[in-house]
């Protein structure tokens, strides 16, 4: 008996597998984003220092990340570094590495512009009240910067989640890979499987990204007030 197309999603534990695949992709994005936020803050603060060498190197790093397609970076790290330099790197690790490399640059630039957008007299008022440099940063400058960069940071996270669809190409078993496996397995019983599976993946990505992009929009509006 021929299946109705949609049944492919619910046969066996197919749907659960898709969800697990989605989680694998999401996990890469979330871990990379967490690392990017941490490192990006340091990188951003570094970029506000008036030092030719630091600024030059940061510029090169930023431009490199922006020019290079993420896919090339993934291949470079996974096939290049891992295989040729003898580092044993799983696809997931390589992905996290590349996404963090990318995210740190983008976060750093966001942090930098948010930091310099905080007026000098905010730093001075902190100092005039006897606050130490780190206290001024911690209690005054960073909270104000965070508000400013939150919308763009959330939108960076959505871009990262979307870009995880590339990591299938370096062998990470994530949602697209799982989808392919399901389609392959039901090639003969269900010729319409591809449509349903990819449709489901589309909805999964939508379900994950939409709240974030909505959040970014809301934050942006709040900030403009």
């Amino acid at each position, binding site marked *: 008996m021929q299946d109705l197309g949609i049944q492919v999603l619910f046969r066996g534990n197919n749907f659960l597998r898709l969800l697990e695949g989605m989680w694998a992709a999401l996990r890469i994005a979330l871990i990379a984003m967490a690392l990017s936020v941490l490192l990006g803050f340091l990188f951003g603060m570094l970029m506000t220092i008036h030092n030719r060498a630091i600024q030059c190197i940061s510029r090169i790093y930023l431009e490199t990340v922006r020019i290079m397609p993420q896919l090339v970076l993934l291949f470079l790290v996974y096939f290049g570094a891992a295989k040729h330099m003898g580092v044993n790197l799983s696809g997931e690790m390589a992905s996290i590495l590349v996404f963090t490399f990318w995210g740190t640059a983008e976060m750093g630039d966001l942090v930098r512009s948010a930091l310099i957008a905080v*007026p000098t*007299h*905010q730093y*001075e*008022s902190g*100092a*005039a*009240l*006897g*606050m*130490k440099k780190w*206290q001024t940063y911690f*209690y*005054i400058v960073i*909270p*104000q910067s965070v*508000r400013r960069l939150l919308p763009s940071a959330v939108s960076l996270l959505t871009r990262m989640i979307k870009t995880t669809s590339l990591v299938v190409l370096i062998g990470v078993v994530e949602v697209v890979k799982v989808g392919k496996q399901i389609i392959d397995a039901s090639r003969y019983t269900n010729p319409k499987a591809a449509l349903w599976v990819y449709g489901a993946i589309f909805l999964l990505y939508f379900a994950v990204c939409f709240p974030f992009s909505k959040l970014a929009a809301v934050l942006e509006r709040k900030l403009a007030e």
Partner: protein
Amino acid sequence: MEPILQTKHLQKSYDGSHQILKDINFSIKQGEVVVIVGPSGCGKSTFLKCLNMLEPMDRGEIYLDGKSIEREGKNISLYRQKVGMVFQSYELFPHLNVMDNLLLAPRKVQKRKKEEIQKEAETLLLRVGLWEKRKAYPRELSGGQKQRVAIVRALLMHPEVLLLDEITAALDPEMVREVLQVVQELAKEGMTMVIVTHEMKFAKAVADRVLFMDGGIIVEEENPQEFFVYPKTDRAKQFLNTFHYAALEI
């Protein structure tokens, strides 16, 4: 009486060549109010920032309670707690409400108990007429209200000396009075203050001593009755002529 705050041969330039402050010898006693006037760009703000060590000076010494102050190091924070400052631009912290603006430094810098500072803050807010606004954010306040909060914020650190840099210059005329009134009351209570202002009537009323600064030096130093009515130098006469304030002639 020993001066509480003093500078000797203070010199300052921003670019290493053009001297903004040439040789400032300044002193203020406990409870005294010194007003600094002078044309815009003559270095008044720079001087106050040097006094507060927000700007490094090139040469000279600062003494607080007779002790020479080191220019660097961890004592700077302690020094700034004793020498408070309020600026021209409303520099409240926009992400904190009024009460949190007030509590931040006493808690984090002086490690005082929250309840104690809060009580004191409420008393001071009551006095400047802003108790109702204690939960408001800076963006919800007028310029005059923000400056009054800024003054309270500086006072809560229990400074020995308060530096005020044109704190009404950015205000609409109708708000100037409410701020100057607060300062005048502080003066009456014996707060030691160095005030830079362009409000000549106020200067005359509040000052124990007036310094006229021009070209990076103190040109005249007088009591206000003398200075505003019989300025000695031509530069001071010229400067005062730019203010048309008939009220002072009385």
